[in-house]
C-alpha cells in the first residue's frame, strides 16, 4: 500500500492531524516516509475531492485536517478491496 492519498486517509481515520503529525504517523504504521511534496500533493487532491477538510485552529501554519464522512466511506471501500486482495493472495500462497 503506497498510494499517498490512501495513507493520508488511513492516518486521519485515527483522528485530526496536521502535516508533520501525518508524516510521522504514516512512517510509523506503514514504514513509508512521504516527502513534503508528495504529502501536500495528496492533501490537495483529497481536499478537492471533499474527502478531508481543514479543522479550525489558531495556528494556521500547522493546519490540522479531518477525514469527512465521504472520505471514510472511500477509505472503507479501498481497504475492503485491499483486504480481498490480501486474503486471496495469502490463501493462494498457502495452496502453493
Amino acid at each position, binding site marked *: 500500500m503506497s*498510494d499517498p*492519498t490512501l495513507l493520508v486517509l488511513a492516518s486521519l481515520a485515527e483522528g485530526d492531524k*496536521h*502535516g*508533520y503529525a501525518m*508524516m510521522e504517523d504514516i512512517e510509523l504504521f506503514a514504514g513509508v516516509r512521504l*516527502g*513534503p*511534496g*508528495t*504529502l*501536500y*500533493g495528496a*492533501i*490537495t*487532491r483529497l481536499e478537492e*475531492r471533499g474527502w478531508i477538510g481543514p479543522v479550525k485552529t489558531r495556528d*494556521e*501554519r*500547522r*493546519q490540522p485536517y479531518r477525514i469527512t464522512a465521504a472520505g471514510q466511506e472511500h477509505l472503507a471501500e479501498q481497504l475492503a478491496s485491499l483486504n480481498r486482495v490480501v486474503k486471496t493472495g495469502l490463501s493462494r500462497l498457502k495452496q502453493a
Partner: protein
Amino acid sequence: MKRVLRFLIYLYPAWWRRRYGRELEALLEDSGSRWRDVWDLFRGATEMQMSKWTFAAIVVACGIAGLVLSCVGALSMSIPYRYRSTAILKIEPAFNTDALNRVVDAAFAPQALSDIIRQEHLYGEAPIDRSIDRLRRAILIRPTGSNLAQVSFAYENPAQAQRVTQNLIGRIISANVNPSVNPNGLRIEFDASPGPPKRQFEGKRLSLVGLGLPTGMLFGVALALILRRRRARTAS
C-alpha cells in the same frame, strides 16, 4: 538546504501557495531538511502546475522545452569541430615535471607563439594577445609513461593542427639544447611524430539536437497520461 527547499515552494502555482504555502513551510521546519526532499518538492510543484493544464497544453509545453533544447544544441553546432594532433616526446633519463616546464616555458615564449600564429594564420583577425592565450589553452602536455610525454594541439583545421604540433615539438627540442634552459641535461627527442589529427568529442552534437524535440514530445505525452490516470484513480 532550507533555502533551497523554501525556494522550491515558489515553483508551486500562486493559487496553491496561497492555500498551502505557509503550511508546507511549517512542515519543512518541523521535519528537517533532506536532499531527497528537493526532488520530491520539485516533482510536487510540477504536478501542481500541470494539474490545471489540459493534455494538449502539456504536450505543447514539453514540445517547446524540446525545441529550446534543440536551439541550444543548434547554437553549439555553430562552434566548429576541433581536431587534435598528438606527438610523443621521449625524455631521458626520466620524466621531470619541473625541468620539462622550464623547457616548455622557454619554447613557448610569447614571441615564439606569435610567430606560429602569424605563420599559420590562426584565429582569424583576433588580437594577438588573445590569440596567444587561445593557443596556450589549446596545447596539452601530459606524461604518458615514466619517460614519455604527450604534446598535443587542437584546432578547427586538421592540417593546421598537425603542422602546429610539429612546430611546437621542434621548438621544445630546440629549447632543450640551450644549457641555460636545461641545466640538468634532460634529453628530449621525438618518439612519435604528430599523427593524423582526431576529431574531438563534440562530433555527436547533430544527433543529440535531432533527438531534442521528439524526446520532449514523448516525455510530455507520457507525463500527461500518468497525470490523467492518477486523476481518474483519485476520482473513482
